[in-house]
């Protein structure tokens, strides 16, 4: 990745136009040709620097339900518990964190009732108390990382 790639990533994190020649417009601002920009985006996608290039949806407006949950997994059972939780298709992300509550995961389902159902199933299968921390308010939605 070079400086041009960094400029491209920083610019595209701010948005991408919806018009007939969007790459041309973005390329012009970055001092590139349309085909240079297209080639570079394709490479950044192919080599995994970018996960996705497209729309960022408002997940709640799309009709889904989400929550953040955590468990305190005993060290000697950590891998087994992680395996159980990760096997749930409703679990979208799962991170180990250095805290007594050492496993933090996001559950995403189509309906709120399915969230409750999944939480109960995880409690049953792991034998652990699951802390449920659904969002009450969101103060920020953007995600911009300086490349």
């Amino acid at each position, binding site marked *: 990745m070079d400086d041009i790639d960094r400029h491209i*990533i920083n610019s*595209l*994190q*701010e*948005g*991408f136009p*919806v*018009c*007939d020649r*969007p*790459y*041309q417009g973005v390329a012009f601002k970055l001092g590139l040709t349309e*085909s240079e920009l*297209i080639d570079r985006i394709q490479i950044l996608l192919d080599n*995994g*620097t*970018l*996960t*996705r*290039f*497209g*729309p*960022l*949806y408002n*997940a709640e*407006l*799309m009709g*889904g339900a*989400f929550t*953040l949950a955590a468990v305190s997994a005993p060290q000697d059972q950590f891998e087994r518990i*992680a395996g159980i939780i*990760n096997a749930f298709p409703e*679990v*979208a*992300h*799962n*991170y*180990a*964190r*250095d*805290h007594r509550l050492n496993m*933090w995961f*996001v*559950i*995403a*389902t*189509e309906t709120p009732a399915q969230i409750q159902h999944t939480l109960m199933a995880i409690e049953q299968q792991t034998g652990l108390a699951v*802390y*449920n*921390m*659904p*969002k*009450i308010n*969101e*103060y*920020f*939605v953007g*995600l*911009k*990382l300086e490349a």
Partner: protein
Amino acid sequence: MIVDGWDQKLLEAIQQGLPISPRPYARLGDLLGLSENEVIERLDRLKQIGLIKRMGVIVKHRSLGYLANAMIVWDIPDHQVQEVGRQISEFEFVNLCYRRPRSGQDWPYNLYCMIHGKNRESVLKKFNFLEQCCQTQSFPREILFSVRCFKQRGAIYYHSDQELADG
């Protein structure tokens, strides 16, 4: 919500990504049987009603060298949490900021934010700066660094039957 069958097809077609070619919206139109103009008008509308927050890229933190990520939690009095949440979210390096319910005595925290950094030191530096600016030092709080990412499913939000999958 005012989304018709064409919108659904369009949302489904772009969820894996926009075509990387000079006229991406014409290409989408070809796939769906819509004109380029219709695709552009529909996407504009979907942005206006907020269903699409924006078009752009999703970046992998790790590939940009952002190896450390911390979840910071505070216990802020209920009458102040809204104001503090707004302040915290103003900082460019704060990626997400949420109010969540407290979970009993051993987890009294009600405000969460995420800070990414190239390493732990840089995250802590940002955190200290944030605390000074927002004067949150006196509130109980904890920093939870991630030590491992087990699962990070690709974002699939939409199928034509309005099924939803990811967060």
